[in-house]
């Protein structure tokens, strides 16, 4: 375990464990001299890459599926079936592009869902105005 890379990896895992989603009292955008390379690596980390981070034991749970969760999974698979994205693009967008706060803060399928919405806009199949209007219209059905 003497190599410099292995020492870096161990320090990295210690640092990223301290990155947590939070509703902060104030935000910070540090000056360049306040971010060394170790912290650059931590802040630009891929949020999905959690293997080996320390954590405490939890109760292992099963879970009932929400209707929207089932439908979200199916929508994502069917979008791939019809060539809108491939599974690797989906995994990148929902596990890394979302960023650490949403990654750890939202339910598992919440990330799938936001990503499915995002791909429609990013690839210009739907304008953001159309998406926004549709959300508004669906909400009104429940009023």
């Amino acid at each position, binding site marked *: 375990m003497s*190599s410099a890379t292995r020492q870096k*990896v*161990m320090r990295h895992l210690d640092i990223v464990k301290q990155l947590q989603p939070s509703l902060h009292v104030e935000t910070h955008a540090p000056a360049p001299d306040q971010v060394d390379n170790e912290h650059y690596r931590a802040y*630009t980390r891929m949020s999905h890459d959690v*293997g*080996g981070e320390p954590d405490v034991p939890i109760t292992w749970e099963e879970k009932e599926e929400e209707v929207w969760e089932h439908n979200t999974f199916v929508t994502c698979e069917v979008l791939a079936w019809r060539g809108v994205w491939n599974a690797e*693009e989906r995994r990148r967008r929902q596990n890394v592009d979302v960023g650490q706060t949403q990654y750890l803060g939202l339910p598992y399928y919440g990330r799938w869902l936001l990503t499915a919405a995002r791909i429609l806009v990013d690839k210009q199949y739907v304008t953001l105005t159309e998406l926004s209007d549709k959300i508004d219209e669906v909400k009104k059905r429940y009023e």
Partner: protein
Amino acid sequence: MSKPHFDREHHVKKATGIGDPQCFKGEAGPAKFKVGDKVRIKDLPDIFYSRTQVYTRGAPATVAELVYESPAAEDESWDNTDNPVWFYSVVFKQKDLWPDYPDTFANDTVETELPERWLEPL
């Protein structure tokens, strides 16, 4: 306005009736490593996306199997399939990954799959 064009057909044309990763078979060229080779995982930049876990970086491993050919995740996640590479199943000793892993369980291992670009001979 100008709109991008995305080819939604290329994967379905290539993989229908064949499967993925089978549809990339024969496209990676000769494999650089063989079963039993000792390798080390490189600590390459992982800006934006990778599926090479940080915990593997810099650690020694043994090639257990040449599993398939496929574009690396870094490329395929932007739908680029131009450059399929060999994927290897590699095995780590837990003791080589975690300094605090108990000596009592020195035989314990981790296996994972990595594309050729991340491996260097040891």
